[in-house]
């Protein structure tokens, strides 16, 4: 039961801490307006290149953009704690690590999914894309899984945040990779073989594929395998991130690198 409380309470506090940092004047331009423009940008480039449909780009970019809130928030929660010198205090506490770290991930996942959902809705309205309303619940599931999966990757960047200073560069670079490799803007079939291999192990690839099928009217059961793969990727990244966090934490204790100098 204690683990559950740590999970819930820790998560809630992190949520408030997260939104304290992300004030409306940053949130609205960066997480509401920007993704819509990314969607518009690529939809029009698609038209200019004569490649794929508007719907293709709306779904792809709405989900891909969730990388920003998921990666940045996760990284900053650790980076922020390090900055505020509270990280040491947390890690000294006897609280079991798993619920501690994962509790902090929950608000990030929810926020990421929210951003993607709003972007998807805005994109379909502005571009007049036809997505059946019946697909909404299934899409919500896929979006949540996508956010979860990317937050898993975020745990790894969060771990790296314990050791490197310029985390913004790292997360922006990852964002760029996700833009190219996940099929958000280029159909996977048009990518060379080696790139497709990389796509297969990154977050978002399967979720985007699933979402596109759902938008075309497929049923939830028909995309369960894709959702499953996305979940698996998320779990692998999450646990990798968890172990990395523990590793750096131990290292940090040994070499006193946990406080920002």
């Amino acid at each position: 039961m204690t683990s559950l409380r740590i999970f819930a309470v820790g998560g809630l506090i992190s949520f408030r801490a997260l939104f304290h940092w992300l004030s409306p004047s940053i949130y609205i331009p960066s997480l509401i307006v920007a993704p819509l423009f990314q969607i518009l940008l690529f939809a029009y480039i698609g038209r200019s290149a004569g490649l794929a449909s508007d719907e293709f780009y709306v779904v792809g970019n709405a989900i891909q953009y969730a990388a920003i809130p998921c990666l940045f928030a996760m990284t900053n929660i650790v980076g922020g704690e390090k900055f505020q010198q509270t990280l040491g205090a947390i890690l000294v506490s006897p609280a079991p690590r798993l619920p501690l770290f994962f509790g902090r991930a929950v608000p990030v996942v929810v926020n990421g999914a929210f951003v993607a959902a709003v972007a998807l809705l805005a994109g379909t309205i502005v571009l007049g894309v036809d997505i059946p309303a019946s697909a909404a619940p299934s899409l919500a599931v896929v979006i949540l899984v996508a956010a979860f999966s990317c937050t898993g990757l975020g745990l790894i960047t969060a771990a790296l945040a314990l050791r490197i200073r310029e985390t913004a560069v790292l997360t922006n670079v990852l964002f760029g990779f996700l833009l190219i490799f996940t099929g958000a803007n280029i159909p996977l079939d048009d990518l060379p073989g080696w790139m497709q291999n990389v796509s297969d192990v990154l977050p978002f690839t399967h979720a985007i594929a699933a979402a596109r099928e759902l938008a075309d009217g497929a049923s939830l059961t028909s995309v369960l395998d894709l959702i499953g793969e996305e979940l698996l990727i998320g779990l692998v990244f999450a646990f990798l991130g968890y172990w990395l966090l523990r590793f750096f934490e131990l290292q940090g204790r040994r070499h006193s690198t946990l406080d920002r100098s």
Partner: protein
Amino acid sequence: MRTLRLLAVGWYFQFKAILRSPFEGLFQVIYPLFFATVAFLMFRAGTDQKTLLYASLGAAVMGMWSATSTTAAGAMQRERWHGTLEALVASPPHFSLILLPITLAMSTVGVYCLVATLLFGRFLFGIDLTFEHPLLFVLSIVGTVISFGALGFLFAVTFVRFRAAWALGNLFEYPVWLIGGFLVPLVLLPDWVRPISWALAPTWGMNAIRESSLGGTPLPDLAICLALGAAYLTIGILVLERVLTAARKRAALSLT
């Protein structure tokens, strides 16, 4: 003339300082390359075989704009964090002569972005570069850098009241890419967007650069680009007066 010398010296030292910052320097060049890659792959896979050079040029100017938009809005904030804003305001020259070199230095980083993108396209995607009017190509780049600097100046003075000025600056990255017609011919955009595109110096800078490479009449485009830059500068100077006076009243020039 003293003014030109002041601008040149200011630009030189500010540019030197920017280049020595890893985040502001190297990263500014690398980040747009991701978008360039997407653009190249999209155009290569698409059915409308506009020349890939069109895509390369568009992506290159996207990089140029990135270098300015993501940094210029926060120019005054940056100086305040360094503690140098007061020193700059307290010096004799009109503040516009001090701020313009700063935003010009930021937009000059865009040249690195442009070159990096063109080379990237050449060596990784085999996109050959042709220059129908080579001299005008160079002039167009210079003109674009100048007008981007002027637009950055306008951003810097307009957004200075916002604590998250940088977030607002970032907000203008995508829209200008889209509306400036870098990778999308303006005819594809809704009619009502067209006048907005025409009011943006980046649109004309892009045209000038594109036409000096692919063929066309770059000079009129370049002239309009510079004229718009001058307009932004004028508006910016007018706003600056009020901004600085307000800052001196509110004691907002330093962090303490």
